[in-house]
């Protein structure tokens, strides 16, 4: 199923500064959208639980990722200590995309 839209938000952290991105993958450079799809596939994103939150970890980031297709929208909320190891690369990529969007605004 084709991914139509991705929303990402990073909140909390020592600085408490919000990073966010809302984009269509088709608007990304080809290389970056391929990397993104590969990571989502690898994680089997739609099967991930909606909540994978840190407990008792002051200053860690909270991440919210929503992946939308024509028929479905799936949101995962997670934190630094509870995100699976495999998810770290995805979080880093979304972070870079968010930062680029914020810079352009």
């Amino acid at each position, binding site marked *: 199923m084709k991914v139509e839209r991705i929303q990402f938000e990073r909140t909390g952290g*020592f600085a408490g500064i919000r990073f966010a991105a809302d984009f269509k993958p088709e608007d990304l450079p080809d290389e970056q959208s391929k990397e993104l799809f590969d990571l989502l596939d690898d994680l089997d994103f739609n099967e991930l639980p909606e909540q994978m939150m840190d407990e008792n970890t002051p200053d860690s980031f909270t991440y919210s990722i929503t992946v939308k297709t024509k028929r479905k929208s799936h949101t995962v909320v997670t934190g630094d200590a509870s995100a699976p190891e495999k998810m770290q690369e995805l979080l880093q990529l979304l972070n870079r995309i968010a930062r680029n969007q914020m810079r352009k605004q």
Partner: protein
Amino acid sequence: MHKHFPVNCIVPPHMLEDIATNGTAAQKVLAINTLKASAQMVGKRRALSDFTGAALRVAVGGKERIIYDAKNGSSLPGTQVRKEGDPPSTDVAVNEAYDGSGATYDLFKEFYQRNSIDNNGMRLDSTVHYQKGYDNAFWDGEQMVYGDGDENLPINERLFNRFTIAIDVIGHELTHGVTQYEAKLTYSQQPGALNESMSDVFGSLVKQYTLGQTADQADWIIGAGLLTSNVNGVGIRSMKAPGTAYDDPVLGKDPQPAHMKDYVNTVSDNGGVHINSGIPNHAFYVAALEIGGNAWLKAGQIWYVTLRDKLTSSSKFQDCANLTYQTAGELFGTGSLEQQAVKNGWAAVGLGVEGGNGEPTEPGDGCFTSLLRAIGAAPAK
């Protein structure tokens, strides 16, 4: 060869917890390993943090630090690179984590008679070089974790330096550990913002103590040096003037309020714990400046005793105002200059103090509204 410890098999969890808290060093380590192993099996790793630190990191009596290197991965704690007494490393982040945690230990020990995070000699573990491009530091319930900022981006795009660069960040993270063992302030809404504020207060005091500054000499900036020259800002937060630390096209503007009338209601950031902490931060600053001298001596003592003995997990700003005022009276005398300074500190952020542990008021709910409510001229809560 596989060793078989009876404690692994037959001792019930509550007894293991007792051993982990009260046993000898060797017993503690054994009991805690068993508890951790079983907790991991049922996915409760974090639930044990109240006593795992003490048991796992039982020190031989004093300051004991270990610095680990995550080598840009996310596995904790990583590879041990420096332990207590070792000569400096060639890695500046390792040395900053070592020196900063040492200075924090010294401040709490020398002036507040506290022996480490748990007041029982808990070993201070820090991990540096966490992940790649990780612009953050956090306390994971057991140890400190530091990223290198956005070192993986081109220089002209970098916003954050390595997080060990600012000693108050190190003091901040360690104080989260102290709070975890004392008031246990819930990390949400006002108790969460108080948790954050306590970390900023003692983080700033560690810096002032290291620099030998008096309250009027200190910059009261949290995270000075953390932002690169690409950012228009002097740090992450200002206790002196909350809301003025940065104003930048990419990062936006420092959102901290300095007064209850500007309290920010939000679901983001655990209910704005890093935002509304500006209010109690500023109260501390005003009190410390009025008391004068080295802020860690009197103002710090008042806040520390309040954190240790009086605040609870659900305490709000009004509770903190009342209890710091009460503590100041107990430590320095009713009506003393110090107690008056604490009262003035809270007044500066819009909170009057009450003699006892009065009912906390809601954000923006001032004394006048409370008075109206008391005489029936305003709706009850």
